[in-house]
């Protein structure tokens, strides 16, 4: 049969088309049925080899999107967190179905109707136990406890969601950026006392916090910055609200880091701090040793890379580094 005959003979064309469709269908079905087993905080879970319809609950949403994933359904993220995402990631988040404000309020019928083939969850353990059976009845559910370190969470999500290539690229960039910062500023960091101060929209009026969690944890643990931290077993320093009159105590530190937005300006909740006379009179502030750092998040490589880029640029402005 010539090509011309094939193209003009209608029955032959249709037969071949149907056969192709059937083959693709069979291949897809086989692929969909292919499974693998992963280990998670809720045990050994059998999940699709290449999940296509992933729902993310709790803290898994932003790390999954950061890995290039496209969740079909999510629990809501705060407006401020979403606003700090790159534009394309904001679009992915907004295209997903918002299930509820938090995991324990998820409308299970709505989630089931979206037919996810994998559910990723990171919420408090007690909250997960309340919804565990319902989630597992809908789709294979992978749970990460809250004490999962951010790199382990990224590894776990990439493994479950089959986005390990993206993760490898991020890890390589992270290692390069970190080595670069340590090479450029290693001596400065070693000889300098730092303090990271912060203020959130939920902070009480007239108060600020000394941050030792979030991005300051990255700065301390990954970069080696000498940030104050709570003693072992004690509550994080960030949980204590200091009144503005205690801003004067920051005078003992060589460098003060504070939160800024992507535009480099102090974040809105932090503006009242920088407007105080006490802040402006601090030796570090007056001498240009107060540096703003952009922290879009601390539980995924993409966000941490943005923080490191901000840190790199900020350290370069310190008089000692010039």
């Amino acid at each position, binding site marked *: 049969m010539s090509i011309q005959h094939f193209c003009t003979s209608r029955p032959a064309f249709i037969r071949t088309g149907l056969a192709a469709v059937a083959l693709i269908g069979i291949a897809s079905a086989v692929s969909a049925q292919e499974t693998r087993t992963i280990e998670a905080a809720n045990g050994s879970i059998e999940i699709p080899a290449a999940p296509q319809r992933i729902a993310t609950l709790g803290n898994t949403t932003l790390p999954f999107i950061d890995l290039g994933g496209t969740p079909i359904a999510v629990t809501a993220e*705060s407006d401020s967190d979403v606003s700090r995402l790159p534009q394309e990631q904001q679009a992915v988040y907004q295209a997903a179905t918002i299930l509820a*404000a938090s995991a324990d309020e998820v409308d299970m019928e709505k989630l089931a109707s979206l037919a996810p083939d994998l559910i990723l969850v990171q919420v408090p353990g007690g909250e997960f136990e309340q919804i565990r059976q319902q989630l597992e009845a809908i789709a294979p559910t992978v749970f990460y406890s809250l004490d999962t370190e951010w790199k382990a969470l990224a590894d776990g999500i990439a493994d479950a969601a089959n986005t390990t290539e993206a993760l490898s690229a991020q890890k390589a960039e992270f290692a390069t950026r970190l080595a670069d910062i340590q090479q450029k500023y290693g001596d400065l960091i070693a000889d300098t006392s730092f303090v990271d101060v912060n203020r959130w*929209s*939920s902070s*009480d*009026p*007239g*108060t600020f916090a000394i941050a030792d969690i979030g991005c300051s944890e990255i700065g301390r643990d990954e970069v080696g910055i000498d940030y104050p931290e709570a003693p072992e077993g004690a509550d994080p320093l960030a949980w*204590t*609200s*200091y*009144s*503005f*009159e*205690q801003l*004067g*105590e920051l*005078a003992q530190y060589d460098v003060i880091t504070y939160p800024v937005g992507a535009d480099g300006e102090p974040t809105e909740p932090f503006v009242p701090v920088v407007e*105080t*006379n*006490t802040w402006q*009179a*601090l030796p570090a502030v007056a001498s240009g040793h107060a540096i703003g750092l952009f922290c879009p998040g601390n539980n995924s490589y993409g966000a941490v890379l943005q923080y490191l880029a901000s840190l790199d640029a900020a350290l370069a402005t310190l008089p000692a580094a010039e």
Partner: protein
Amino acid sequence: MAGVIAAAMLLLALLIGSMMIGSTTITPGTVWDALFNPSANIDHFAIRDFRLPRTFVGLSVGIALGLSGALIQALTRNSLADPGILGVHAGASFAVTVAVGMLGVRGIESYMWFAFAGALLVTLMVLALGSTRQGQSPVVMVLAGVCIGAVLGGFREALQLGNPDAFDAMRSWNAGSILGRPLDVLWPILPFFAAGIILAFAVSGPLNAMALGDDLAQSHGVKLTRARVLSVIAITLLAGGATAIAGPIGFVGLMVPHVARWIVGPDQRWIFAYSALLAPSLLLASDILGRVVMRPGEMPVGIITAFVGAPVLIALARRRRVSGL
């Protein structure tokens, strides 16, 4: 008179203490220099920018709460009444929750006006509901205040449960605090406080007569409806303003007039004078305690007054015959 002078001295000591005591103790000399010979010293900034406004706010809010408490107890002839019984706190809290949770209002400077408006609106409703053919009925007003307060409290809880961000944003206000309130927050409310204080002392005489019974008061030329309406307006201006600035601080308006009555007897003019001196003393003492009790953090003054207030209330209730109306 000696008692008033002693109360005034106590208040003066606490005003100075409020300037000296905090996260760090600052010497009287430094306080003096900060106020009258200021420089770019960090301690001077701490005093002028934070402790001075906080002390003024504590003084003003304390006077307002004390006088409004004395007024409500005299008006209702109930020595265990406090300004919240007319729905002032509930109205203010509900309005702030709506402002923060539904309108996205942030910052005490913005939502304090919602609090004030909420307190005013609820009190006007209470006043209207308390109007009978015979005039204003304190009992009906109190019942109306309690009922409206319960309804608004339910709505407020529902709104806060559905919007955790709103709950977070107004957590400090809800607890009752004078931390982080700059003088810019106080100035716009001061005229309302001044009007409330003038009204309070203006009705103290008629309230004395009304304590003897409506018929006797009328025979002394007291216009009952006018006295009651003016009292409610004064309570609203004072308690509404105080709640707008500091959030709902309980027990001060309840305890202090009670103590004042215990000291000076049933004369409302003296009760009001003592309340205006002792209430800010209690508030400032509680605030100072809140600054040092869990260093390096602080405890909101509303929590300290509640801690102090609960046992004192029990003790006072047991002494009812001594300080009853």
